[in-house]
């Protein structure tokens, strides 16, 4: 049962988010270079780190699926990637807002982390058209897992390549996200990171529970010999 523990998890997430937001706006000191704009980091960077780890986790689930052939791992992989993509949209939009506030442009190529995130996002955005183009359910699950593994391996490589491409003349714009953070900022950052990570786990569990519920409905229908009318438009991964 996927819903077990979901309530506790949500409460923990809300508490953590409330704590983090309070720290961001009432505790963390104002940064000298960027001023108030720097507060965006506490949202943008945790979202980015969580999304990236989420993609790699999706790849790990995919490996489990390929090795055990248990369909539930495929569903886990699908949902992990799904939530990470949504977080990814948040990363790109908050990144653009930050760029506009700092540099006056809605996009900057000078920030390697943002650029490599864009590329990773572009790759994972192809996950859905790729997945739904395969009609056979077994094959769809298997190929999607191969995709997730390949894409998971791609993430670190891509970051390396983009980082290398940065000319050493351009200053790293996200300098504050590197080491050298004063203690109070570091504490705030870590709380935000924990909150966003908890949020990711909660949403994944939430979506798996919903999928499971749909799966139980289908199971009931089958047991009663009462198939649904006009269903089965896309063969999405199921959980039951």
């Amino acid at each position, binding site marked *: 049962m996927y819903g077990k523990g979901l309530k506790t998890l949500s409460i923990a997430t809300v508490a953590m988010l409330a704590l983090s937001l309070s720290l961001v706006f009432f505790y963390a000191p*104002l940064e*000298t*270079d*960027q*001023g*108030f*704009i720097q*507060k*965006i980091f506490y*949202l*943008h960077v945790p*979202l980015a780190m969580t999304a990236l780890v989420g993609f790699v986790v999706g790849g790990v689930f995919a490996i489990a699926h390929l090795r055990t052939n248990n369909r539930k791992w495929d569903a886990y992989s699908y949902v992990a990637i799904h939530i990470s993509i*949504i977080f990814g*949209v*948040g990363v790109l*939009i*908050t990144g653009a*807002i*930050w760029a*506009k*506030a700092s540099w006056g442009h809605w996009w900057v190529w000078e920030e390697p982390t943002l650029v490599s995130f864009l590329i990773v996002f572009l790759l994972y955005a192809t996950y859905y058209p790729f997945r739904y183009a395969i009609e056979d359910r077994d094959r769809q699950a298997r190929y999607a897992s191969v995709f997730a593994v390949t894409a998971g391996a791609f993430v670190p490589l891509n970051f390396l390549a983009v980082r290398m491409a940065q000319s050493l003349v351009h200053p790293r714009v996200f300098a504050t996200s590197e080491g050298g953070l004063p203690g109070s900022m570091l504490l705030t950052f870590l709380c935000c990171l924990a909150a966003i990570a908890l949020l990711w786990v909660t*949403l994944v569990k*939430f*979506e798996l529970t*919903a999928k499971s*519920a*749909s799966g139980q*409905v289908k199971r*009931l*229908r089958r047991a*009663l010999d*009462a198939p*649904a009318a006009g269903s089965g438009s896309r063969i999405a991964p199921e959980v039951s």
Partner: protein
Amino acid sequence: MPLPLGAPALPLHEAGKYVAGAYIVFVVLLVVYVGIMAAKLQRIEREMSEIATIAEQRKEEKDEVSA
């Protein structure tokens, strides 16, 4: 909180809009997600009620037959 002299940052009332914008985007994404899940929940509720009706009908038929 006064900004240090010479800081290239935007004035607070300007910067505030961007920071608010970023956090608003976060909230909006979250709520949109909740909305999508709500739609799924609605569908599940509808199907469950259909199934409940079917099960009740079957029970009636069975009671009639055995009566």
